[in-house]
């Protein structure tokens, strides 16, 4: 009799067919919320601590439409203050940084980039600069609910600094499902944050590491609500330093 009841209980359990897609969407949403709410100021703080590859390059990227939220220019670079795990920075205090850079000079913050109708114009795309050459494309395996954007960065000289960002327009239901790169994971600090209507993937070369002269691939993957995407809402930007000079490239993803 007990065995019979057990069997009926198992059958009752199996009668429920969970809606995997619905569950995954809810989980991803919860994950994104718990990542973005914790350190809302995290990426801004981390930006402020990061030695950007080049202030000039940064300004160019901002005017090219890759206006990173909380994009910050520091004074004299305070190197190696990037927290090892930006995600764990949980102090929500908006107070200026930082535990380590006590002598950090005042920062000029450019949050909410103004809707300037005539920004100092940078071209829509600039795919090559010095030793950098780049190309963005939508991976052909993408489908109605899921997209992978590929960024191929051809590097002709060793890079001592490198920041790669991919911005995905939050057109509704966009949830990151991951990212990867061909360079060793250990060389980069990777963050994924939703900022001002965009899901922002960011790779930051760790201080002291070098990217060799070689082809480097970066890929981001995300779920989206039904409806194919063509990459038009997605952009990338790269800032790098080679032999003491700064370079920047940026562009979109072609399907």
């Amino acid at each position, binding site marked *: *009799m*007990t065995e019979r*009841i*057990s069997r*009926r*209980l*198992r*059958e*009752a*359990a*199996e*009668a*429920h*067919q*969970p*809606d*995997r897609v*619905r*569950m*995954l969407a*809810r*989980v991803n949403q*919860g*994950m994104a919320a*718990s*990542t973005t709410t914790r350190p809302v100021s995290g990426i801004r703080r981390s930006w402020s601590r990061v030695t950007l590859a080049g202030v000039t390059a940064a300004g160019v990227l901002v005017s090219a439409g890759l206006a990173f939220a909380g994009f910050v220019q520091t004074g004299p670079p305070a190197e190696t203050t990037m927290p*090892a*795990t930006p*995600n764990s920075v949980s102090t929500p205090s908006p107070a200026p940084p930082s535990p380590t850079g006590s002598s950090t000079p005042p920062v000029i913050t450019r949050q909410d980039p103004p809707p300037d109708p005539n920004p100092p114009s940078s071209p829509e795309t600039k795919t090559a600069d010095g030793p950098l050459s780049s190309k963005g494309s939508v991976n052909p395996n993408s489908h109605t609910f899921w997209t992978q954007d590929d960024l191929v960065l051809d590097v002709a000289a060793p890079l001592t600094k490198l920041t790669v960002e991919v911005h995905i327009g939050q057109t509704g239901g966009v949830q*990151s*499902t*991951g*990212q*990867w790169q061909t360079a060793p*994971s250990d060389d*980069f*600090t*990777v*963050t*994924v944050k939703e900022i001002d209507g965009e899901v922002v993937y960011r790779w930051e070369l760790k201080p002291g590491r070098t990217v060799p002269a070689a082809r480097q691939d970066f890929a981001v993957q995300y779920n989206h609500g039904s409806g194919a995407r063509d990459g038009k809402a997605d952009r990338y930007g790269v800032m790098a330093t080679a032999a003491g000079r700064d370079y920047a490239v940026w562009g979109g993803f072609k399907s």
Partner: protein
Amino acid sequence: MLVDHRSAEFHDFFERHHAELARLAWLLTGEADAADDLAADALVALWQRWDRLRGAEHPLAYARGVVANMARERIRAATRERRRIALFWSRGPEQVRSPDVAAVVDVRAALDGLPFRKRACVVLRHAFDLSEKDTALALGISVGAVKSQTSKGMAELERVLGARADVVMGRGNQ
């Protein structure tokens, strides 16, 4: 520590265990859609502690425990709501699409007749074949309590379902 590695690991956990957790939520609450949401929410709670749990041996036990707690809270809230509006609380619109719907409904109804802890013990031990130890781990109670709650719960189910089985005998064999 990289976001992508943790995330990939967690998504792998999701793929392996989401169905079991949703079914557990379904057997405990009897609400199909809400069960999926509840299990998803439990997984998010798991994610928020993932750094700590991934090294532990029992992330799944933890997840089951979260599902059980959430299910109990949900049932309590629903009970309060039912009292407040003094209406019969329908479990209605989410019908089970099973070839043997009536049998499943009977089991679900019988489970609803059990106090929550007995129900959870019976479900984990017999619907999911968990050991007494794993059941105790998930529910945060002693093995002794699992033993007694399970045997009492099963006795009640046998009484209720056995009586009904006499009535509907034969249907299940076709």
